[in-house]
Protein backbone atom coordinates (compact mmCIF):
# COMPACT_ATOMS: atom_id res chain seq x y z
CA UNK A 1 0.00 0.00 0.00
CA UNK A 2 1.41 3.43 -0.97
CA UNK A 3 1.97 6.28 1.41
CA UNK A 4 -1.01 8.29 0.22
CA UNK A 5 -3.55 5.51 0.38
CA UNK A 6 -2.22 4.62 3.81
CA UNK A 7 -2.69 8.26 4.83
CA UNK A 8 -6.20 8.27 3.49
CA UNK A 9 -7.13 5.15 5.45
CA UNK A 10 -5.54 6.57 8.55
CA UNK A 11 -7.44 9.82 8.17
CA UNK A 12 -10.77 8.05 7.85
CA UNK A 13 -9.91 5.96 10.89
CA UNK A 14 -9.10 9.10 12.87
CA UNK A 15 -12.35 10.73 11.86
CA UNK A 16 -14.45 7.69 12.77
CA UNK A 17 -12.64 7.23 16.05
CA UNK A 18 -13.07 10.87 17.04
CA UNK A 19 -16.82 10.71 16.36
CA UNK A 20 -16.99 7.57 18.48
CA UNK A 21 -14.90 9.25 21.18
CA UNK A 22 -17.28 12.23 21.17
CA UNK A 23 -20.24 9.85 21.52
CA UNK A 24 -18.58 8.02 24.41
CA UNK A 25 -17.62 11.20 26.26
CA UNK A 26 -21.16 12.50 25.69
CA UNK A 27 -22.54 9.29 27.17
CA UNK A 28 -20.29 9.53 30.23
CA UNK A 29 -21.12 13.23 30.76
CA UNK A 30 -24.85 12.47 30.61
CA UNK A 31 -24.85 9.23 32.59
CA UNK A 32 -27.07 10.89 35.21
CA UNK A 33 -29.04 13.20 32.91
CA UNK A 34 -32.76 12.53 33.06
CA UNK A 35 -34.17 11.32 29.75
CA UNK A 36 -30.76 10.92 28.08
CA UNK A 37 -30.54 8.04 25.63
CA UNK A 38 -27.15 6.39 25.09
CA UNK A 39 -25.48 7.14 21.74
CA UNK A 40 -23.44 4.69 19.73
CA UNK A 41 -21.54 5.16 16.49
CA UNK A 42 -22.32 2.95 13.55
CA UNK A 43 -19.15 2.39 11.46
CA UNK A 44 -18.93 0.87 8.03
CA UNK A 45 -16.16 0.12 5.58
CA UNK A 46 -15.68 2.87 3.03
CA UNK A 47 -16.02 1.86 -0.60
CA UNK A 48 -12.82 0.14 -1.76
CA UNK A 49 -11.02 1.52 -4.80
CA UNK A 50 -9.68 -0.50 -7.69
CA UNK A 51 -6.04 0.04 -8.54
CA UNK A 52 -5.11 -2.01 -11.58
CA UNK A 53 -6.40 -5.47 -10.90
CA UNK A 54 -6.41 -4.98 -7.13
CA UNK A 55 -9.09 -3.62 -4.79
CA UNK A 56 -7.82 -1.60 -1.88
CA UNK A 57 -9.64 -0.69 1.27
CA UNK A 58 -10.07 2.99 2.02
CA UNK A 59 -10.68 2.75 5.74
CA UNK A 60 -13.89 3.23 7.69
CA UNK A 61 -16.52 5.92 7.71
CA UNK A 62 -19.25 6.92 10.12
CA UNK A 63 -22.58 5.63 8.87
CA UNK A 64 -24.45 7.38 11.66
CA UNK A 65 -24.82 8.00 15.37
CA UNK A 66 -27.54 5.78 16.79
CA UNK A 67 -29.66 6.61 19.82
CA UNK A 68 -30.48 3.61 21.99
CA UNK A 69 -34.24 3.80 21.99
CA UNK A 70 -37.21 1.44 21.99
CA UNK A 71 -40.44 3.13 20.97
CA UNK A 72 -42.62 0.39 22.48
CA UNK A 73 -40.98 0.69 25.90
CA UNK A 74 -41.08 4.50 25.66
CA UNK A 75 -44.82 4.48 24.92
CA UNK A 76 -45.43 2.13 27.84
CA UNK A 77 -43.35 4.38 30.06
CA UNK A 78 -45.28 7.48 28.97
CA UNK A 79 -48.61 5.70 29.61
CA UNK A 80 -47.45 4.48 33.01
CA UNK A 81 -46.14 7.94 33.93
CA UNK A 82 -49.62 9.34 33.25
CA UNK A 83 -51.34 6.58 35.27
CA UNK A 84 -48.99 7.06 38.21
CA UNK A 85 -49.43 10.84 38.22
CA UNK A 86 -53.22 10.44 37.98
CA UNK A 87 -53.38 8.06 40.95
CA UNK A 88 -50.96 10.15 43.01
CA UNK A 89 -52.78 13.40 42.30
CA UNK A 90 -56.18 11.88 43.11
CA UNK A 91 -54.82 10.49 46.36
CA UNK A 92 -53.25 13.83 47.30
CA UNK A 93 -56.61 15.63 47.04
CA UNK A 94 -58.64 12.84 48.66
CA UNK A 95 -56.17 12.66 51.53
CA UNK A 96 -56.86 16.34 52.24
CA UNK A 97 -60.63 15.86 52.05
CA UNK A 98 -60.43 12.85 54.35
CA UNK A 99 -58.54 14.92 56.89
CA UNK A 100 -61.48 17.34 57.07
CA UNK A 101 -63.82 14.51 57.97
CA UNK A 102 -61.42 12.74 60.32
CA UNK A 103 -59.86 15.59 62.23
CA UNK A 104 -58.10 13.94 65.14
CA UNK A 105 -57.94 17.19 67.12
CA UNK A 106 -61.69 17.37 67.58
CA UNK A 107 -64.47 14.79 67.61
CA UNK A 108 -65.60 13.54 64.25
CA UNK A 109 -69.09 14.31 62.95
CA UNK A 110 -70.71 10.99 64.07
CA UNK A 111 -69.40 11.46 67.62
CA UNK A 112 -70.65 15.01 67.68
CA UNK A 113 -74.12 13.97 66.46
CA UNK A 114 -74.18 11.34 69.16
CA UNK A 115 -73.30 14.15 71.59
CA UNK A 116 -76.48 16.00 70.53
CA UNK A 117 -78.62 12.94 71.26
CA UNK A 118 -76.75 12.35 74.55
CA UNK A 119 -77.48 15.91 75.69
CA UNK A 120 -81.16 15.47 74.72
CA UNK A 121 -81.26 12.23 76.72
CA UNK A 122 -79.69 14.02 79.71
CA UNK A 123 -82.34 16.73 79.42
CA UNK A 124 -85.15 14.17 79.88
CA UNK A 125 -84.07 13.93 83.54
CA UNK A 126 -85.41 17.46 84.05
CA UNK A 127 -86.56 19.13 80.77
CA UNK A 128 -86.96 22.49 82.49
CA UNK A 129 -83.40 22.54 83.87
CA UNK A 130 -81.50 25.47 82.33
CA UNK A 131 -78.04 23.89 82.49
CA UNK A 132 -79.28 20.74 80.74
CA UNK A 133 -81.00 22.90 78.09
CA UNK A 134 -77.76 24.87 77.64
CA UNK A 135 -75.92 21.62 77.04
CA UNK A 136 -78.46 20.70 74.35
CA UNK A 137 -78.07 24.12 72.72
CA UNK A 138 -74.27 23.96 72.84
CA UNK A 139 -73.98 20.45 71.40
CA UNK A 140 -76.51 21.21 68.62
CA UNK A 141 -74.76 24.45 67.74
CA UNK A 142 -71.30 22.87 67.80
CA UNK A 143 -72.45 20.02 65.60
CA UNK A 144 -74.10 22.31 63.04
CA UNK A 145 -71.03 24.56 62.95
CA UNK A 146 -68.79 21.53 62.40
CA UNK A 147 -70.97 20.27 59.54
CA UNK A 148 -70.98 23.66 57.81
CA UNK A 149 -67.22 24.20 58.32
CA UNK A 150 -66.53 20.75 56.85
CA UNK A 151 -68.67 21.60 53.81
CA UNK A 152 -66.99 25.00 53.43
CA UNK A 153 -63.55 23.39 53.66
CA UNK A 154 -64.44 20.88 50.97
CA UNK A 155 -65.76 23.65 48.70
CA UNK A 156 -62.55 25.64 49.35
CA UNK A 157 -60.54 22.55 48.48
CA UNK A 158 -62.47 22.25 45.21
CA UNK A 159 -61.67 25.90 44.43
CA UNK A 160 -57.98 25.34 45.15
CA UNK A 161 -57.94 22.25 42.94
CA UNK A 162 -59.58 24.18 40.11
CA UNK A 163 -57.01 26.99 40.49
CA UNK A 164 -54.24 24.40 40.26
CA UNK A 165 -55.84 22.92 37.17
CA UNK A 166 -55.72 26.38 35.54
CA UNK A 167 -52.00 26.59 36.31
CA UNK A 168 -51.35 23.09 34.97
CA UNK A 169 -53.32 23.81 31.76
CA UNK A 170 -51.23 26.90 31.13
CA UNK A 171 -48.06 24.78 31.37
CA UNK A 172 -49.65 22.01 29.30
CA UNK A 173 -50.38 24.37 26.40
CA UNK A 174 -46.81 25.67 26.50
CA UNK A 175 -45.53 22.10 26.48
CA UNK A 176 -47.74 21.15 23.52
CA UNK A 177 -46.23 24.07 21.60
CA UNK A 178 -42.71 23.02 22.67
CA UNK A 179 -43.30 19.53 21.26
CA UNK A 180 -44.61 20.98 17.99
CA UNK A 181 -41.50 23.23 17.80
CA UNK A 182 -39.21 20.26 18.52
CA UNK A 183 -41.00 18.28 15.80
CA UNK A 184 -40.20 21.08 13.39
CA UNK A 185 -36.52 21.03 14.38
CA UNK A 186 -36.38 17.22 14.16
CA UNK A 187 -37.87 17.23 10.66
CA UNK A 188 -35.40 19.93 9.60
CA UNK A 189 -32.45 17.97 11.04
CA UNK A 190 -33.12 15.06 8.67
CA UNK A 191 -32.33 12.30 11.12
CA UNK A 192 -29.39 13.86 12.95
CA UNK A 193 -31.24 14.97 16.03
CA UNK A 194 -30.44 12.77 19.01
CA UNK A 195 -30.42 15.70 21.46
CA UNK A 196 -33.68 17.08 20.05
CA UNK A 197 -35.29 13.63 20.34
CA UNK A 198 -34.20 13.38 23.97
CA UNK A 199 -35.65 16.82 24.65
CA UNK A 200 -38.90 15.85 22.95
CA UNK A 201 -39.12 12.63 24.99
CA UNK A 202 -38.75 14.66 28.17
CA UNK A 203 -41.49 17.04 27.06
CA UNK A 204 -43.85 14.17 26.12
CA UNK A 205 -43.17 12.45 29.43
CA UNK A 206 -43.86 15.67 31.35
CA UNK A 207 -47.05 16.16 29.33
CA UNK A 208 -48.13 12.61 30.19
CA UNK A 209 -47.49 13.38 33.85
CA UNK A 210 -49.79 16.37 33.60
CA UNK A 211 -52.66 15.10 31.43
CA UNK A 212 -51.87 11.48 30.40
CA UNK A 213 -51.07 11.19 26.69
CA UNK A 214 -49.99 8.63 24.12
CA UNK A 215 -47.79 9.22 21.10
CA UNK A 216 -46.55 7.59 17.95
CA UNK A 217 -43.70 8.40 15.62
CA UNK A 218 -44.12 9.42 12.00
CA UNK A 219 -41.80 8.66 9.10
CA UNK A 220 -40.53 12.24 8.97
CA UNK A 221 -39.35 11.89 12.59
CA UNK A 222 -42.17 13.95 14.11
CA UNK A 223 -44.20 12.66 17.05
CA UNK A 224 -47.98 12.73 17.00
CA UNK A 225 -49.32 13.26 20.52
CA UNK A 226 -52.79 12.04 21.41
CA UNK A 227 -55.15 12.62 24.30
CA UNK A 228 -57.50 9.67 24.07
CA UNK A 229 -58.61 9.77 20.43
CA UNK A 230 -57.90 13.47 20.01
CA UNK A 231 -54.74 14.81 18.44
CA UNK A 232 -52.89 17.43 20.49
CA UNK A 233 -49.74 17.65 18.36
CA UNK A 234 -49.71 16.81 14.69
CA UNK A 235 -46.38 17.48 13.01
CA UNK A 236 -45.51 21.12 13.60
CA UNK A 237 -49.00 22.08 14.78
CA UNK A 238 -50.08 22.01 18.40
CA UNK A 239 -53.63 22.43 19.65
CA UNK A 240 -54.80 24.27 22.74
CA UNK A 241 -56.52 22.78 25.76
CA UNK A 242 -58.96 24.82 27.80
CA UNK A 243 -61.01 24.27 30.94
CA UNK A 244 -64.35 25.60 32.10
CA UNK A 245 -65.18 25.46 35.79
CA UNK A 246 -68.57 25.33 37.41
CA UNK A 247 -69.29 24.58 41.07
CA UNK A 248 -67.48 21.35 41.84
CA UNK A 249 -67.04 20.39 38.21
CA UNK A 250 -64.44 21.08 35.54
CA UNK A 251 -64.87 20.40 31.82
CA UNK A 252 -61.95 20.19 29.41
CA UNK A 253 -61.90 21.05 25.72
CA UNK A 254 -59.43 20.91 22.86
CA UNK A 255 -59.58 23.52 20.11
CA UNK A 256 -60.18 21.96 16.72
CA UNK A 257 -60.82 24.10 13.64
CA UNK A 258 -62.02 27.15 15.58
CA UNK A 259 -64.37 24.94 17.62
CA UNK A 260 -64.11 23.20 20.97
CA UNK A 261 -64.40 19.44 21.48
CA UNK A 262 -64.93 18.02 24.95
CA UNK A 263 -62.12 15.81 26.23
CA UNK A 264 -63.03 15.58 29.92
CA UNK A 265 -63.40 11.81 29.72
CA UNK A 266 -59.94 11.45 28.18
CA UNK A 267 -58.08 13.53 30.74
CA UNK A 268 -55.47 11.60 32.71
CA UNK A 269 -52.26 12.46 34.53
CA UNK A 270 -52.25 14.88 37.45
CA UNK A 271 -55.07 16.97 36.00
CA UNK A 272 -57.18 13.85 35.39
CA UNK A 273 -56.54 12.74 38.98
CA UNK A 274 -57.58 16.14 40.27
CA UNK A 275 -60.71 16.02 38.13
CA UNK A 276 -61.65 12.59 39.52
CA UNK A 277 -61.05 13.79 43.08
CA UNK A 278 -63.15 16.87 42.37
CA UNK A 279 -66.05 14.65 41.31
CA UNK A 280 -65.69 12.54 44.43
CA UNK A 281 -65.67 15.59 46.70
CA UNK A 282 -68.78 16.83 44.94
CA UNK A 283 -70.35 13.44 45.75
CA UNK A 284 -69.40 13.81 49.44
CA UNK A 285 -70.93 17.28 49.50
CA UNK A 286 -74.12 15.97 47.88
CA UNK A 287 -74.27 13.25 50.55
CA UNK A 288 -73.70 15.84 53.26
CA UNK A 289 -76.46 18.02 51.76
CA UNK A 290 -78.85 15.08 51.81
CA UNK A 291 -77.96 14.32 55.42
CA UNK A 292 -78.46 17.97 56.43
CA UNK A 293 -81.82 18.08 54.64
CA UNK A 294 -83.07 14.88 56.28
CA UNK A 295 -81.75 15.76 59.75
CA UNK A 296 -83.23 19.28 59.55
CA UNK A 297 -86.59 17.94 58.37
CA UNK A 298 -86.78 15.38 61.17
CA UNK A 299 -85.74 17.73 63.96
CA UNK A 300 -87.76 20.69 62.67
CA UNK A 301 -90.94 18.70 61.99
CA UNK A 302 -90.87 17.04 65.40
CA UNK A 303 -89.91 20.23 67.24
CA UNK A 304 -92.81 22.01 65.53
CA UNK A 305 -95.17 19.41 67.03
CA UNK A 306 -94.02 20.35 70.56
CA UNK A 307 -94.66 23.45 72.66
CA UNK A 308 -92.31 25.81 74.48
CA UNK A 309 -92.64 27.31 77.97
CA UNK A 310 -95.17 29.88 76.73
CA UNK A 311 -97.30 27.24 74.98
CA UNK A 312 -96.16 28.23 71.49
CA UNK A 313 -95.35 25.61 68.84
CA UNK A 314 -91.64 24.95 68.39
CA UNK A 315 -89.54 26.89 65.87
CA UNK A 316 -87.12 25.31 63.38
CA UNK A 317 -84.33 23.46 65.26
CA UNK A 318 -81.77 23.48 62.45
CA UNK A 319 -81.69 25.88 59.49
CA UNK A 320 -79.98 25.75 56.10
CA UNK A 321 -80.55 28.85 54.00
CA UNK A 322 -78.68 27.44 51.03
CA UNK A 323 -76.63 30.57 50.33
CA UNK A 324 -73.59 28.71 48.96
CA UNK A 325 -73.35 26.08 46.27
CA UNK A 326 -74.23 23.45 48.88
CA UNK A 327 -76.93 23.33 51.53
CA UNK A 328 -74.49 22.00 54.14
CA UNK A 329 -72.39 25.19 53.91
CA UNK A 330 -75.20 27.21 55.52
CA UNK A 331 -76.26 24.60 58.10
CA UNK A 332 -76.81 26.28 61.52
CA UNK A 333 -78.58 25.74 64.81
CA UNK A 334 -81.47 28.24 65.06
CA UNK A 335 -80.01 31.42 66.62
CA UNK A 336 -83.36 32.17 68.37
CA UNK A 337 -83.14 28.91 70.29
CA UNK A 338 -79.51 29.60 71.14
CA UNK A 339 -80.44 33.04 72.50
CA UNK A 340 -83.57 31.95 74.39
CA UNK A 341 -83.65 28.35 75.58
CA UNK A 342 -87.23 28.82 76.85
CA UNK A 343 -88.18 28.42 73.18
CA UNK A 344 -87.25 24.71 73.31
CA UNK A 345 -90.54 22.92 72.59
CA UNK A 346 -90.04 19.82 74.71
CA UNK A 347 -93.65 19.57 75.88
CA UNK A 348 -96.17 17.51 73.92
CA UNK A 349 -99.05 19.98 74.37
CA UNK A 350 -99.52 23.69 74.94
CA UNK A 351 -100.96 23.33 78.44
CA UNK A 352 -98.34 20.89 79.76
CA UNK A 353 -96.35 21.76 82.84
CA UNK A 354 -92.80 23.22 82.56
CA UNK A 355 -91.21 19.86 83.29
CA UNK A 356 -93.00 17.99 80.48
CA UNK A 357 -90.56 16.28 78.13
CA UNK A 358 -92.82 14.10 76.01
CA UNK A 359 -91.87 15.73 72.71
CA UNK A 360 -88.21 15.65 73.77
CA UNK A 361 -88.44 11.85 74.15
CA UNK A 362 -89.91 11.54 70.63
CA UNK A 363 -87.05 13.69 69.24
CA UNK A 364 -84.55 11.28 70.80
CA UNK A 365 -86.35 8.29 69.30
CA UNK A 366 -85.75 9.75 65.83
CA UNK A 367 -82.17 8.45 66.05
CA UNK A 368 -83.08 4.97 64.87
CA UNK A 369 -82.17 2.84 61.87
CA UNK A 370 -84.32 3.65 58.86
CA UNK A 371 -84.71 7.34 59.67
CA UNK A 372 -82.23 8.34 56.95
CA UNK A 373 -81.68 7.35 53.32
CA UNK A 374 -80.28 3.85 53.03
CA UNK A 375 -82.21 2.67 56.11
CA UNK A 376 -79.61 4.22 58.36
CA UNK A 377 -79.67 6.22 61.55
CA UNK A 378 -78.20 9.74 61.55
CA UNK A 379 -74.93 8.51 63.01
CA UNK A 380 -75.01 5.56 60.60
CA UNK A 381 -75.44 7.92 57.63
CA UNK A 382 -72.42 9.96 58.73
CA UNK A 383 -70.35 6.83 59.41
CA UNK A 384 -71.25 5.55 55.95
CA UNK A 385 -70.11 8.85 54.39
CA UNK A 386 -66.86 8.75 56.37
CA UNK A 387 -66.32 5.15 55.36
CA UNK A 388 -66.79 6.10 51.69
CA UNK A 389 -64.28 8.96 52.02
CA UNK A 390 -61.77 6.71 53.78
CA UNK A 391 -62.19 3.88 51.29
CA UNK A 392 -61.78 6.25 48.32
CA UNK A 393 -58.54 7.62 49.78
CA UNK A 394 -57.26 4.13 50.64
CA UNK A 395 -58.14 2.88 47.16
CA UNK A 396 -56.32 5.84 45.57
CA UNK A 397 -53.30 5.12 47.78
CA UNK A 398 -53.28 1.44 46.74
CA UNK A 399 -53.52 2.49 43.11
CA UNK A 400 -50.64 4.95 43.60
CA UNK A 401 -48.46 2.23 45.11
CA UNK A 402 -49.32 -0.28 42.38
CA UNK A 403 -48.65 2.25 39.62
CA UNK A 404 -45.34 3.16 41.27
CA UNK A 405 -44.21 -0.48 41.02
CA UNK A 406 -45.19 -0.68 37.34
CA UNK A 407 -43.51 2.64 36.59
CA UNK A 408 -40.35 1.56 38.40
CA UNK A 409 -40.20 -1.66 36.35
CA UNK A 410 -40.63 0.24 33.10
CA UNK A 411 -38.00 2.80 34.07
CA UNK A 412 -35.62 -0.08 34.79
CA UNK A 413 -36.40 -1.54 31.37
CA UNK A 414 -35.89 1.83 29.70
CA UNK A 415 -32.56 2.32 31.51
CA UNK A 416 -31.39 -1.12 30.40
CA UNK A 417 -32.04 -0.05 26.80
CA UNK A 418 -31.25 3.67 26.77
CA UNK A 419 -29.29 4.27 29.97
CA UNK A 420 -25.54 4.72 30.14
CA UNK A 421 -23.43 1.87 31.51
CA UNK A 422 -20.20 3.49 32.66
CA UNK A 423 -18.29 0.18 32.45
CA UNK A 424 -19.42 -0.23 28.86
CA UNK A 425 -18.39 3.33 28.05
CA UNK A 426 -14.93 2.66 29.52
CA UNK A 427 -14.67 -0.32 27.20
CA UNK A 428 -15.63 1.95 24.31
CA UNK A 429 -12.91 4.43 25.27
CA UNK A 430 -10.33 1.64 25.09
CA UNK A 431 -11.59 0.84 21.63
CA UNK A 432 -11.32 4.48 20.55
CA UNK A 433 -7.88 4.74 22.04
CA UNK A 434 -6.77 1.79 19.97
CA UNK A 435 -8.22 3.44 16.86
CA UNK A 436 -6.43 6.72 17.63
CA UNK A 437 -3.15 5.03 18.27
CA UNK A 438 -3.35 2.99 15.08
CA UNK A 439 -4.37 5.99 13.00
CA UNK A 440 -1.67 8.22 14.50
CA UNK A 441 0.96 5.52 13.94
CA UNK A 442 0.11 5.25 10.26
CA UNK A 443 0.09 9.05 9.95
CA UNK A 444 3.73 9.08 10.98
CA UNK A 445 4.68 7.68 7.57
CA UNK A 446 4.16 11.21 6.26
CA UNK A 447 7.60 11.75 7.75
CA UNK A 448 9.00 9.82 4.77
CA UNK A 449 7.74 12.52 2.42
CA UNK A 450 9.26 15.27 4.53
CA UNK A 451 12.59 13.43 4.62
CA UNK A 452 12.54 13.29 0.81
CA UNK A 453 11.75 16.97 0.67
CA UNK A 454 14.49 17.80 3.15
CA UNK A 455 17.04 15.79 1.14
CA UNK A 456 16.01 17.71 -1.98
CA UNK A 457 16.61 21.15 -0.46
CA UNK A 458 19.72 20.27 1.58
Amino acid at each position, binding site marked *: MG*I*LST*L*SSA*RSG*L*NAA*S*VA*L*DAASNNVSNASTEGYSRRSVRLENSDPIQIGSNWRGTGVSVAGVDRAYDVFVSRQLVASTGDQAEAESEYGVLYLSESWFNDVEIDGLPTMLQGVYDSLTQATQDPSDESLRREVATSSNTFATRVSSTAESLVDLQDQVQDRMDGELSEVNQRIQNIADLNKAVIASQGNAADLLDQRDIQISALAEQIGVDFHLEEDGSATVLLGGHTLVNGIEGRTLSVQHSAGESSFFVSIDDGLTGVSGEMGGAVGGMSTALDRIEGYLDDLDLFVEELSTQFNDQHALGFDASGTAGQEWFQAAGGGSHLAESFVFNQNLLDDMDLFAFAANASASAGDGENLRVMIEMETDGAFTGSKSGEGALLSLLSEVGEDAASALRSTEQQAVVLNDLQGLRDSISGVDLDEE*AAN*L*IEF*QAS*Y*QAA*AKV*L*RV*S*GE*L*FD*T*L*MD*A*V*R
Partner: protein
Amino acid sequence: MSYDSLVLRLIQVTDAQLVAAKALDTLALDQATQDRADLLFELEVELQEGVPEGERLPLKPLVEQLLLLERRVSAVIALVNGSLDQVLSYDEPTYAPRRAG
Protein backbone atom coordinates in the same frame (compact mmCIF):
# COMPACT_ATOMS: atom_id res chain seq x y z
CA MET B 1 0.86 24.97 -6.55
CA SER B 2 4.51 25.96 -6.18
CA TYR B 3 6.73 24.30 -3.57
CA ASP B 4 6.86 27.34 -1.30
CA SER B 5 3.07 27.74 -1.43
CA LEU B 6 2.65 24.04 -0.68
CA VAL B 7 5.01 24.08 2.27
CA LEU B 8 3.53 27.34 3.63
CA ARG B 9 0.05 25.81 3.45
CA LEU B 10 1.37 22.68 5.20
CA ILE B 11 2.79 24.86 7.94
CA GLN B 12 -0.58 26.56 8.43
CA VAL B 13 -2.45 23.25 8.52
CA THR B 14 0.03 21.64 10.89
CA ASP B 15 -0.20 24.67 13.13
CA ALA B 16 -4.02 24.33 13.14
CA GLN B 17 -3.57 20.65 13.95
CA LEU B 18 -1.34 21.56 16.88
CA VAL B 19 -3.89 24.03 18.27
CA ALA B 20 -6.71 21.48 17.87
CA ALA B 21 -4.67 18.70 19.46
CA LYS B 22 -3.90 20.89 22.47
CA ALA B 23 -7.56 21.89 22.83
CA LEU B 24 -8.78 18.30 22.41
CA ASP B 25 -11.00 19.63 19.64
CA THR B 26 -11.50 16.43 17.68
CA LEU B 27 -13.56 18.02 14.92
CA ALA B 28 -10.89 20.65 14.17
CA LEU B 29 -8.18 18.00 14.48
CA ASP B 30 -9.92 15.79 11.92
CA GLN B 31 -10.33 18.72 9.54
CA ALA B 32 -6.67 19.64 9.85
CA THR B 33 -5.65 16.01 9.33
CA GLN B 34 -7.78 15.83 6.21
CA ASP B 35 -6.32 19.08 4.81
CA ARG B 36 -2.83 17.84 5.63
CA ALA B 37 -3.40 14.57 3.77
CA ASP B 38 -4.65 16.45 0.70
CA LEU B 39 -1.57 18.66 0.70
CA LEU B 40 0.72 15.67 1.15
CA PHE B 41 -0.81 14.12 -1.94
CA GLU B 42 0.07 17.21 -3.94
CA LEU B 43 3.56 17.24 -2.43
CA GLU B 44 4.18 13.63 -3.43
CA VAL B 45 3.11 14.39 -7.00
CA GLU B 46 5.37 17.43 -7.10
CA LEU B 47 8.33 15.54 -5.62
CA GLN B 48 8.15 12.96 -8.44
CA GLU B 49 9.21 15.83 -10.74
CA GLY B 50 11.99 16.87 -8.33
CA VAL B 51 12.66 20.29 -6.80
CA PRO B 52 13.96 22.90 -9.32
CA GLU B 53 17.45 24.11 -8.49
CA GLY B 54 16.34 27.74 -8.10
CA GLU B 55 13.71 26.94 -5.46
CA ARG B 56 15.89 24.83 -3.17
CA LEU B 57 17.63 27.55 -1.17
CA PRO B 58 14.60 29.70 -0.29
CA LEU B 59 12.60 26.53 0.50
CA LYS B 60 15.04 25.22 3.11
CA PRO B 61 14.02 27.46 6.09
CA LEU B 62 10.35 26.74 5.38
CA VAL B 63 10.89 22.98 5.41
CA GLU B 64 12.85 23.28 8.66
CA GLN B 65 9.97 25.22 10.17
CA LEU B 66 7.52 22.56 8.96
CA LEU B 67 9.57 19.73 10.48
CA LEU B 68 9.77 21.58 13.78
CA LEU B 69 5.98 21.93 13.83
CA GLU B 70 5.61 18.29 12.86
CA ARG B 71 7.66 17.23 15.90
CA ARG B 72 5.56 19.43 18.18
CA VAL B 73 2.29 17.95 16.84
CA SER B 74 3.64 14.43 17.26
CA ALA B 75 4.62 15.23 20.84
CA VAL B 76 1.17 16.59 21.71
CA ILE B 77 -0.65 13.64 20.15
CA ALA B 78 1.66 11.28 22.03
CA LEU B 79 0.84 13.15 25.26
CA VAL B 80 -2.91 12.86 24.66
CA ASN B 81 -2.57 9.18 23.92
CA GLY B 82 -0.53 8.82 27.09
CA SER B 83 -3.24 10.58 29.07
CA LEU B 84 -5.86 8.25 27.64
CA ASP B 85 -3.65 5.35 28.72
CA GLN B 86 -3.45 6.78 32.21
CA VAL B 87 -7.21 7.43 32.48
CA LEU B 88 -8.09 3.99 31.23
CA SER B 89 -5.61 2.23 33.47
CA TYR B 90 -6.78 4.14 36.57
CA ASP B 91 -7.98 1.90 39.36
CA GLU B 92 -10.24 3.08 42.16
CA PRO B 93 -8.04 3.36 45.25
CA THR B 94 -8.90 1.03 48.04
CA TYR B 95 -8.70 2.30 51.56
CA ALA B 96 -7.95 0.34 54.66
CA PRO B 97 -10.97 0.19 56.98
CA ARG B 98 -10.83 2.47 59.97
CA ARG B 99 -9.75 0.93 63.16
CA ALA B 100 -12.50 0.56 65.69
CA GLY B 101 -12.28 3.07 68.54
